[in-house]
C-alpha cells in the first residue's frame, strides 16, 4: 500500500520539481515545507515592476503628489525582500508567504495597471479617475477628517447594530418559541419586515429628536428583520428529540429555551447576523449621505460636491478596510461560538 501511494504521487510532483529545481535545492535543508521560487519572488518582482513603471510614468507629474506613493512602493519592496531572507528561519512567515503573496502580487500589479491607464496613457478623464498616487496623497492629506468620519461611522454602526440585534433576538426567540407570540408576531413581521429600512428615511427624519437617533433607529430596523427571521426559523426547527431528551432529564421551560433551543438555533442566528451586517452597512451609508452630517457616507458625498475624486476613492478604500474588518471580527466570533460545529460548517 505504501509503494502504491508513492507511485501515485510521483507523476504529480515531477513537473513542479523540474520547474523550481534550483529553489528546492537551495532551501531543501530547512525541511519539507519549502516555498517554490515563483511564490517567493512574486511580491518583490511585482513591486519592483510597479516602482519602475511609477518612475517612468510620473516624470511629468508634480513630485509633491507622487512622493508618498513612491515611499509606499519602496517600503513594500524593502519589507518583502527582508521577508525573503528571514523566511527560512520562521515557519509561520513561510506559511503566510505561501498563502498571501500570490494575491498581494496580483494586487500590486493591478495598482501598476491602474497607474499606466491613468497617469501614463491618460485613457480616463480627469478629475474622475485619479492615479493611485493621487488617491494615496488624498488619503494622507485628509487623514484627520477621514479618521474622524470613520470613528463617527463606527459609533453609529455599532449602536444601531447592537440595538437591532438585541431587539431581534428577543422578538425572534419569543415568536419562535411561544405559540401566541407566533400568531400575533408573524403577520406583523411579514408585512413590516420586507420594507427596506431606507424607505423609512422621511418618517424617521420627522419623528426623531435628532438625525443621529433616526440613523441609529434605521440601522437597527435594517438589522432587526433578517436576524429575527433567522432566529425564528432556528428556534422553531430545534430537533424535537433534543427537547424530548431534555424533558426526560428533568428540564423546565427556561432550560429548554436557553440551554436547548437557543444553542440549537445559533448556526441560523449567525446567518441572520451576517445578513443583518450587510444591510446595516448599506443603511449606514444611506443615512449618512442624506441626513447625518458626519461619517464616511457623508464624506464621500461632500468630496464629490467639491469634485475631489481622489478623496472619494480614499474614502472607498477606508470603507473596504473598515467593513471587511468588521466582517472578519464577526467570523471570528462565529468560529468561537460554533466551535462544536467544526467540520460541519463550510462558510
Amino acid at each position, binding site marked *: 500500500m505504501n509503494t502504491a501511494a508513492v507511485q501515485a504521487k510521483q507523476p504529480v510532483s515531477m513537473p513542479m520539481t523540474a520547474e523550481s529545481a534550483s529553489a528546492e535545492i537551495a532551501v531543501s535543508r530547512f525541511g519539507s515545507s519549502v516555498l517554490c521560487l515563483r511564490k517567493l519572488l512574486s511580491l518583490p518582482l511585482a513591486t519592483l515592476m510597479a516602482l519602475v513603471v511609477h518612475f517612468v510614468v510620473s516624470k511629468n507629474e508634480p513630485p509633491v503628489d507622487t512622493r508618498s506613493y513612491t515611499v509606499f512602493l519602496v517600503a513594500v519592496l524593502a519589507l518583502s525582500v527582508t521577508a525573503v531572507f528571514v523566511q527560512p528561519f520562521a515557519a509561520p512567515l513561510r506559511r503566510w508567504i505561501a498563502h498571501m503573496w500570490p494575491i498581494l502580487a496580483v494586487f500590486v500589479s493591478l495598482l501598476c495597471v491602474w497607474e499606466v491607464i491613468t497617469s501614463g496613457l491618460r485613457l480616463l478623464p480627469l478629475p474622475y479617475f485619479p492615479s493611485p498616487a493621487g488617491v494615496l496623497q488624498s488619503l494622507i492629506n485628509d487623514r484627520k477628517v477621514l479618521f474622524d468620519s470613520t470613528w463617527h461611522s463606527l459609533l453609529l454602526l455599532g449602536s444601531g447594530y447592537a440595538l437591532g440585534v438585541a431587539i431581534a433576538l428577543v422578538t425572534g426567540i419569543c415568536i419562535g418559541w411561544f405559540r401566541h407570540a407566533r400568531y400575533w408576531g408573524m403577520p406583523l413581521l411579514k408585512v413590516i419586515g420586507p420594507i427596506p429600512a431606507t424607505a423609512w428615511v422621511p418618517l424617521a427624519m420627522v419623528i426623531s429628536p435628532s438625525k443621529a437617533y433616526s440613523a441609529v433607529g434605521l440601522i437597527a430596523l435594517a438589522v432587526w428583520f433578517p436576524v429575527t427571521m433567522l432566529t425564528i426559523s432556528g428556534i422553531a426547527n430545534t*430537533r424535537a428529540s433534543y427537547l*424530548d*431528551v*431534555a*424533558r*426526560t*432529564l*428533568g428540564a423546565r421551560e427556561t432550560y429548554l429555551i436557553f440551554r436547548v433551543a437557543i444553542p440549537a438555533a445559533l448556526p441560523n442566528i449567525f446567518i441572520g447576523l451576517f445578513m443583518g451586517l450587510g444591510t446595516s452597512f448599506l443603511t449606514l451609508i444611506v443615512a449618512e449621505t442624506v441626513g447625518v452630517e458626519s461619517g464616511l457616507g457623508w464624506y464621500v458625498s461632500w468630496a464629490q460636491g467639491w469634485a475631489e475624486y481622489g478623496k472619494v476613492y480614499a474614502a472607498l478604500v477606508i470603507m473596504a478596510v473598515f467593513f471587511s474588518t468588521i466582517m472578519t471580527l464577526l467570523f471570528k466570533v462565529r468560529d468561537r461560538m460554533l466551535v*462544536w460545529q467544526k467540520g460541519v460548517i463550510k462558510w
Partner: protein
Amino acid sequence: MVAPGSPIVEGSSLRVVEVTKSFSSPDNSESRTHALGGVSLSVAAGELVSLVGPSGCGKSTLLRLIAGLDSPDSGELWVGSEAIAAPSAERGLVFQDPNLFPWLTVRRNIEAGLVARGVLREKRHEVESFMRLVGLESFASAYPHHLSGGMAQRVALARALINHPKVLLLDEPLGALDAFTRMRMQDEVLRLWEARGTTMLLVTHDIDEAIYMSDRIVLMTSRPGRIERTITVDLPRPRQRNSTDFLRLRGEILELLHFAGSTIREAVPA
C-alpha cells in the same frame, strides 16, 4: 446519595393498565392510526424487560407514554404509586440515536441532567464517577461529533443515569451499532443494571439481545399494538450466548414469530 457501583435497588415498579393511543394521520385528519390498542403490563422493581415485535407495533409509543412525553387516549400509567402525567428525571430515556447535545462537550452532556434540575453544585462530584463508569474520562472535553457511535451511546447512557432514574427506558439503544460493539455494550448495560438495580424497559429488534439481557420478553403484534405473549427467561446469569438452553429458547421464540424458516420453504413453489 449512593455512589454508582454499590449494589442497591434504585428501581421502582411500573404498571401499565389498558392503555390505548391513536394518532391522526398527517394527510387525513379523519382517519386515525391505532398505535396501541389496550396494552397492560406490569414490571417489578429492578426487573429488566424487553419489548420485541415488528416495526409499527407501538413499542416506541409505549415507551414515550411511560416517559410522559405523550399522554394516552385512555388507560392508566403508574410508576411506583404515582400516576405518570409529565416527563420526569425519574424516568430516563435513551434513544437509538444518542441525541447528544452537539454544542456541549462530553462532560457537559453528562452534567446536563444536573443542570436541568438545578443541582449541579451539590452533585458535581458524581460526574467524574459516571464518566469512569462508561469509560470516557479521557474524552471529557471532546465534542460529540468526534465520538464513534458506541462512545456516543455510552455518553447518552451516562447522561440518563446521572439523575439516578428509577426506571430507564431504552428505545433500541444499540440498534445502530456494529455487532461487536453491540455485544460489548450489552454487557455494559447489564453491568450498570446489576450494580444499580434500575428497572429497565428495553425495546429491541434483536431476539438474541432480548434473551441475553432480560428477565422477561414481551412479544407485541402490530396495528393495533397489543401484547401477544410474555416469555420468562429463566436462564442463570451471566448467560452464555451459545449454551443449549439459550439456543433452545431462541428457537422457540423464532417459531412463535413465524421466522424459524419453515414458512419460507413452504412458500417457494416446487
